[in-house]
């Protein structure tokens, strides 16, 4: 039913296109006035209809992490939609690690390839964004051109223009939101830990049944950041706020010791007695399925019921959020400075920010990634699309969702510092 409605969208009659284009133009002009920034050098003062005219009927190479079949399927659905609307051929380049795309753009820059880059669009956030921004590998000031960007209500929603606290400067558009969610096998444990302190008691009662991946894996640093924030919760505000500024030697000395102390106590009770940490966060799920672990965590909660349906997690899996807080962040999509098909990429991003694409993405059966659109900006009819459908498996319902406070991501420099110091302390077995 809902799907049929989207199909209507893709067959919009011509006059409506004009209305939309004109509205888009007005919005984009307002938006660029709001950001107070001139347009990027390549597009000059291109209007949205110029971009549409130049962007149709091309290939777009979207470099995005390809480790989750649900996400890959969603991207395939997007490919069908943009093929219908703009004759764009979307190619999903499945990365095992986003840094592959970063180094590719860097290699192109070093070879002097400044216009024919192979990466048209890349899915990034946090550290990868900070690295690409630092080396000037991203096209600046294009996000405000997108008609649909205003639906995220950036004026009242600073999270849409800040990536791990770093201003995005129009280099990347928000795509979705996620929060750290824990899940467990009820056959292995009835009462999973509800706070970080309870976790250290729980592992002593269930030795070898919990672990976290090895930094710099994204899930690993996420778990460590969650621990870092919670462990420093009792500190004075002035010290706590240093987490949201670039890490200095002084702030590290103030904030990190509690983390190492906690980990030193935790490690002997972890899987493999903390002598081996898996390289990739995806393996956590497999180890729950193998019965080796009883408790794990993920950033995409919707993968849990989906994995149960694929027989990869036991039917007895349940999910919840920690009562002392859930690390939450926004993930983004960016266009490299040398993308060969920048205009088509913008059309694609604008589609990804459309209510129908965001609503589809939020369905637990599709991806379960939370929408970045502001409800206030949507029509009543569009708001209905975001209502959850009937739940299939109990693990699709996340316990404590209402009471778990959202913890913002620390400054990206902290991820790097934590990963580096962790590897120095625990990375080499003595």
């Amino acid at each position, binding site marked *: 039913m809902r799907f049929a409605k989207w199909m209507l969208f893709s067959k919009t009659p011509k006059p409506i296109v004009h209305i939309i284009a004109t509205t888009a133009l007005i919005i984009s002009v307002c938006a660029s006035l709001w950001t107070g920034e001139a347009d990027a050098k390549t597009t000059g003062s291109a209007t949205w209809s110029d971009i549409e005219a130049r962007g149709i009927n091309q290939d777009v*190479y979207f*470099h995005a992490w*390809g*480790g989750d*079949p649900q996400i890959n399927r969603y991207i395939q659905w997007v490919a069908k939609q943009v093929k219908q609307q703009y004759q764009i051929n979307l*190619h999903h*380049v*499945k*990365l*095992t*690690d*986003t*840094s*592959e*795309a*970063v*180094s*590719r753009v*860097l*290699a192109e820059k*070093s*070879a002097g390839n400044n216009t*024919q880059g*192979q990466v048209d669009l890349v899915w990034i956030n946090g550290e*990868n964004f900070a*690295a690409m921004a630092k*080396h000037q590998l991203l096209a600046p000031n294009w996000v405000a051109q997108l008609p649909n960007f205003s639906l995220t209500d950036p004026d009242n929603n600073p999270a849409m223009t800040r990536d791990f606290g770093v201003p995005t400067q129009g280099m990347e558009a928000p795509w979705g939101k996620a929060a750290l969610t824990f899940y467990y096998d009820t056959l*292995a444990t009835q009462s999973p830990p509800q706070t970080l302190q309870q976790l250290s008691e729980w592992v002593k009662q269930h030795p*070898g049944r919990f672990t976290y991946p*090895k930094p*710099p894996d994204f899930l690993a640093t996420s778990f460590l950041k969650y621990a870092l924030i919670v462990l420093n919760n009792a500190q004075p505000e002035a010290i706590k706020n240093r987490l949201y500024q670039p890490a200095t030697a002084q702030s590290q000395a103030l904030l990190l010791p509690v983390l190492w102390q906690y980990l030193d106590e935790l490690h002997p009770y972890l*899987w*493999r*007695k903390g*002598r*081996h*940490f*898996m*390289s*990739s966060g*995806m*393996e*956590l*799920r*497999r180890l729950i*399925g*193998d*019965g*080796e672990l009883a408790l794990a965590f993920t950033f995409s909660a919707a*993968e849990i019921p989906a*994995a149960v349906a*694929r*027989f*990869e997690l*036991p*039917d007895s899996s349940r999910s919840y959020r920690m009562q002392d807080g859930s690390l939450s962040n926004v993930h983004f999509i960016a266009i490299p400075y040398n993308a060969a098909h920048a205009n088509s990429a913008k059309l694609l991003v604008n589609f990804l920010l459309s209510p129908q694409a965001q609503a589809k993405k939020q369905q637990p059966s599709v991806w379960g990634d939370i929408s970045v659109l502001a409800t206030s900006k949507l029509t009543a009819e569009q708001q209905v699309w975001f209502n959850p459908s009937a739940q299939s498996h109990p693990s699709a319902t996340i316990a404590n969702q209402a009471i778990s406070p959202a913890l913002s991501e620390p400054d990206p420099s902290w991820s790097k510092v934590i990963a580096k110091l962790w590897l*120095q302390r625990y*990375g*080499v*077995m003595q």
Partner: protein
Amino acid sequence: MSTVARLFNPIVRISPFIMMALLVIPVMGGLIGVMLPAFGWIPALDQTSLSLNGFSQLWQTPGIGHMALLGIGTSFVSTFLAFLITILILASYFTSPWLGYIQRLLGPILVIPHAAAAIAIGFLITPSGMISRLVSPWLSGWNAPPDWLYPHDAMGLSIILGLTLKELPFLLLMALGALAQPDLGQTLRAQHKVALSLGYCPITAFFKVVLPSLYPHLRLPIFAVMAYASASVEIPLILGPNNPPTLAVAIMQWFHDVDLSLRIKASAGAILQIQLTLFVLACWWLLEGLVCQFAKSMLTNGRRDYGGAIIQKITHVITALMMAIIGLALVGMLLWSFAGFWHFPDALPQQVVMLHWQTALQQMHTPLIDTVLIALCATALAISLTLLTLEAEQHSGKSLSLLGSVLIYLPLLIPSIAFLFGLVWLLEQVNSQHTFINVVLAHLLFVLPYVFLSLASSYRRLDPRFSIVAASLGATKAKIFFRIKLPMLIGPIFIACALGLAISFSQYLPTLLTGGGRINTITTEAVALANGGSRRISAVYALMQMILPALGFLLAWLLPKMITKMLSKRHQQG
């Protein structure tokens, strides 16, 4: 035909040079492309002054010594084990029909890609794996998987197991290939018989009579295997430790790190990796010299028996164990690919579902087409170049110089991780848009040597009298090549094709790097999935990795028969 005939001789004349260029330029260019960043020259990072920062960063890496040792240790031990078991099998079954059976059983293992083998072995030996399930809970008492650090153990024992199982078939088949040469094989078998009649125990006879003449034929294959093992990434990545990993895996991770300045360290690491590989090869060479020194007197001391019966029993056990490991790993993988939920310690899954095959096959078609296309292009190029080069040998009447033979082996002897990153940089300089061609060229580096090795002996052994007769009847060289030599070599050519395809199917690092992630093959996907969340999908991909080369060999076995039939029919009608 006339234009072909006119162009044939010049083409033949230049093809050895084209072949050498295609092998040498990428490898050497790649080495230069990795040397420059190693000494701090990366214009992209605005670093254009030469320095030793990369190397000082490398020395400061925690656990760098451990990484290097792990690479050296696992490659040396696994090659030694593979060599030892090869020799034991040859010695024990030298005169028995079992040798042929083992050869037939191990042949297919040879073409299983490293990644698939690693995935299969991983399924077998993890605490929640097949072996553990078979003995639980009735024997072990485990109701939950034990918390053992194996695989991924710090000593690299699981890497050694994986590498040994992969290297052994290669060495054994190389040895049997050498013994299949009529002059060598017949002589050695005859000498072995003489030794037996002089009262030598079969095993002693093999060691004293056959091995000294056979070993020189195994030296290069051993070096190739060892060089590969010391710098391979698939098996250590899937089975090895990560605290720290082997140097080769670490280099790959540094190259892909978010922190772009790590590429300098990675390039320095690649230089170190070359030295490590050379060191391992030197160690083997030294060991060889020592064994020669000490064993020389033993050859002529007249002792007839060194506990041959016990050695024979040990060999039986090792052979049976290997077959069991290989069989169980395959069964385990098949089960995983059809498994519903599979509780530990059940030995069988609760239900059998087709879901994973359906899901995987839906995602697979693009990688599958790419895999096959790349392999076909690389193999077609390799076969053409090889045949023309071998023809050029016969035109000039002398075989390839030693330098030529070494150059053909070059991509196999230099750790690929060292020159591939430089090659990517080099390709960037030349063209950046033809990813597919880049990948094919990179695959060619590894396909060509194997295809050449597989075809050279058959081609050189062709009875020259056919060509002489044809020439005396006025046939041109081109006509002789197409109408006489190729039809006579149809079997070996198809086998070489199948081998080339199999080598191409299994390439991970070259595809990943030169393809820039744009070209996904079954192998790159399988490695990506091996450390992912789904055992089941991973099993499907690994099985696919095995099915593809198997199909290639099946076709190589069937097609020549059909084509020969067709040709003979045409002859009868004509």
